[in-house]
């Protein structure tokens, strides 16, 4: 650790991993409800479990992004963070808000209260007081990070990271605007949901990936920056008007069908560029960095993001196709692989890279961590295939043949069982990952001579 304030990242990563564990366990629970629909339904209805699963995902990914920023900004700006105290206050606010949201959701406290009650819009259900907390935390964060960058060295990596994080925070302000007209409500809602995951988060991901590849491969900064700018340009070019692919059926004018189809098709390009970037950098790289697990996660993130976000997204983005597949299990397949590939993996990559440094240990060869990569990636890929099959069957029976929804749910029951099993693999992988980060104090599996000669 070159700078003392990088230690802030440690606490953010710990919090992120804790919420990650909650998130995947919630997923396991929700997945089981698909298998056995009445499972504890009196205690926790499906919608609440799902809400916890998705909200926890967003919270821990953001905690991870903040942690990543606290880790890489001092190193890039070549100076200590402006104020470690503010960073810890920010973490406190975020954790308090998270706890508040969970309790409010679970017991449906203050139902209908404008300030304290749950708001009910998917993914931004947080009570208003939590939303205000999020904004305050974001302001503290941006103030802290921006001042550090302004006073220090400015690099393409921090520029892009800041652009992404500022955009992310400003777009969240639309969470406070909730028009009564349902079409307008949805239109502004996508300003957050879409422009986060298919706009600003992509910038954050590209920037973290660029930092990791810079450190892990030792390729010249100049080359990394050129790629980074291309990724950012194509992401913004396609992503902003790509929002149109959510406007097909919510009551907006029909020309959005063409704008959405064309621009969102191009959204594949930045993900393809990120994948090519990662592999080209590794191939060109002259450094043999000991942290092989971080490299595995970085390459995995870029690859799975391309398939999950790029290929599976394109699969149902054209309005002619989406007319049939909208809201089926195909969406669930895409959502899972895209989030896992793009944002989960990139977070786990930076955590894998940073943790040994933050804890002052050797990275070892991290066999457990790599095993967790394959368990999670394998489980998630299998889940995606299973849900894609289920979605295809569902689309045909429900949307083409016009059969009853509940009968089809029974028809694809086997797929839901297989999905749960693959989810279990992901959960085991996640727990293994957290264990591998926190517990081992020495090399668990010694590299053999044969491995050495292959690895070199």
């Amino acid at each position, binding site marked *: 650790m070159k700078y003392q304030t990088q230690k802030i990242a440690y606490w953010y990563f710990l919090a992120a991993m804790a919420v990650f564990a909650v998130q995947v366990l919630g997923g396991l629970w929700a997945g089981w409800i698909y298998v056995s629909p009445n499972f504890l339904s009196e205690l926790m209805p499906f919608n609440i479990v799902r809400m916890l699963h998705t909200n926890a995902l967003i919270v821990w990914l953001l905690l991870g992004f903040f942690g990543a920023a606290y880790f890489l900004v001092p190193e890039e700006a070549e100076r200590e963070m402006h104020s470690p105290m503010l960073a810890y206050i920010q973490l406190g606010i975020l954790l308090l808000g998270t706890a508040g949201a969970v309790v409010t959701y679970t017991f449906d406290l203050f139902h209908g209260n404008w300030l304290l009650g749950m708001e009910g819009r998917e993914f931004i259900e947080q009570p208003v007081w939590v939303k205000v907390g999020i904004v305050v935390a974001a302001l503290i964060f941006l103030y802290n990070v921006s001042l550090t960058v302004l006073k220090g060295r400015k690099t393409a990596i921090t520029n892009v990271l800041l652009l992404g994080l500022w955009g992310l925070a400003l777009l969240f302000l639309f969470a406070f605007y909730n028009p009564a007209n349902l079409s307008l409500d949805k239109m502004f809602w996508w300003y957050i949901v879409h422009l986060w995951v298919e706009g600003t988060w992509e910038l954050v991901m590209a920037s973290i990936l660029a930092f990791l590849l810079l450190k892990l491969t030792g390729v*010249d900064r100049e*080359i990394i920056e050129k790629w980074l*700018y*291309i990724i950012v*340009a194509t992401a913004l070019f396609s992503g902003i008007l790509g929002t149109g692919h959510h406007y097909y059926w919510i009551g907006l004018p*029909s020309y959005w069908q063409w704008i959405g189809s*064309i621009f969102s098709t191009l959204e594949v390009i930045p993900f393809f560029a990120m994948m090519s970037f990662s592999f080209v950098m590794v191939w060109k790289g002259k450094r043999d960095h000991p942290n092989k697990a971080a490299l595995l996660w970085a390459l995995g993130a870029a690859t799975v993001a391309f398939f999950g976000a790029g290929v599976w997204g394109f699969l149902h983005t054209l309005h002619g196709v989406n007319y049939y597949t909208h809201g089926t299990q195909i969406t669930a397949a895409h959502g899972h692989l895209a989030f896992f590939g793009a944002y989960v993996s990139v977070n786990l990559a930076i955590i894998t890279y940073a943790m040994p440094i933050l804890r002052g240990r050797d990275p070892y060869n991290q066999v457990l961590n790599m095993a967790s990569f394959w368990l999670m990636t394998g489980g998630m890929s299998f889940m995606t295939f299973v849900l894609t099959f289920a979605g295809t069957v569902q689309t045909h029976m429900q949307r083409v043949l016009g059969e009853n929804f509940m009968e089809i749910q029974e028809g694809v029951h086997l797929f839901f069982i297989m999905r749960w099993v693959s989810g279990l693999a992901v959960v085991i992988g996640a727990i293994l990952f957290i264990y591998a980060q926190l517990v081992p104090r020495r090399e668990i599996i010694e590299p053999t001579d044969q491995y050495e000669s292959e690895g070199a």
Partner: protein
Amino acid sequence: MTDQTSVLDELPGDLMIWVLIVSELLVFGAGLLAFLGMRAMDPAGFAADQAALNRVAGAANTIVLVTSGYCAARAVNAFDHSLRAMRLWLAAAMGFGIVFLVVKWYEYAEKARHGIGIETSDFFTFYYLLTGFHALHVVAGLIIFALLMRWGTHRNLEAGAAFWHMVDLVWVLLFPIIYLVH
């Protein structure tokens, strides 16, 4: 460092403007092909709507725009020896750009008088989307040129002119397909 970077170095001007040019060509290319695909399902309807377009205005605008592109290219060349000449050429480019927009405005107003809008038919949805997006690029180009008048450097000018040529290129492909193919 490697052969890959040297190939990119071959490109005249800034790499990022080329990323933009390629992206724009993909968008307009996809839009025009989608237009032709929709036309294939209803050639008679598309032909009837197309008859309402003003071909003369479209053809005139082609000449206006390529001339404007010429002025922009000359502005880049003039920069190195005379700031004044650069500004004159750039002003000429902007003048032609404004003429293009005036003609476009006249076309849109004419449609509006006949009660034709973006939701009138598939043909007009594409007509307004594609020519409208293109016209917005013309407006953007004019703003860029206005900024370059004051803050032009060789590098900036080259990028601004390249943007303008891209707008030119898109029109040259768009005009025959929307206005003429039937």
